[in-house]
């Protein structure tokens, strides 16, 4: 079950090697995104697109806000 975390935990996990994934559309990611995040848009999230992720490290996903 995915665990909901806050920004301080994001920072801690990323510092420890977690992968940060922005799931917004490419154009929104290109405009601005959290430093160090990669982009895999939600609509493209599948086995092929996620092959770039390391399964042995935590993955943190985010979009713009709660909505």
């Amino acid at each position: 079950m995915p665990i909901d975390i806050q920004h301080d935990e994001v920072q801690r996990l990323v510092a420890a090697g977690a992968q940060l994934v922005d799931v917004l559309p490419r154009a929104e990611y290109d405009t601005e995104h959290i430093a160090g995040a990669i982009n895999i848009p939600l609509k493209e999230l599948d086995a092929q697109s996620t092959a770039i992720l390391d399964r042995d490290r935590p993955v943190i996903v985010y979009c713009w806000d709660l909505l």
Partner: protein
Amino acid sequence: MSPRAAWRLESLGFPQVYEYAAGEADWLAYGLPSEGPDADTPRAGQIARRDVPTCSLQERLGEIRDRVAAAGWDEFLVVNDQQVVLGRLRSAALEASADATAEAVMEPGPTTTRPDEPLARIVSRLRDKHVDRIIVTTPDGRLVGIAERRTAERVLAQREGTEEDHD
């Protein structure tokens, strides 16, 4: 969107999936680092004065007034022990009885903005309201500082000048 993405990753066999549901809006509001063309947009958090004096609900005006003068400000913000902004004491309120508590004379629930608010929007809002300052807090209400309109205008003017130099 992110809950669906998190569940999808789990379904794809990722064993350690976290969801930052508050997202980029929250991240920027805390003034944390970002990348991309919009990342250098000047924002409220960059100009917020952190030296604004604060007091607690139960402090009495007699004590507060001395600190106001020493701090060189004409107002105080009323905060709790978590630094959450509960009220504002402007100069007129500070003239009340020395025995009055901050709670008794403060303006409760003052207008605030987030650190990620672009300065251009801040200036527009402050001009529309004919005010010179706005309190900057984190999304959970903790004090960051006070953003002043004249500072925001100066930063924007300098930025425009820099951009024109590059054209």
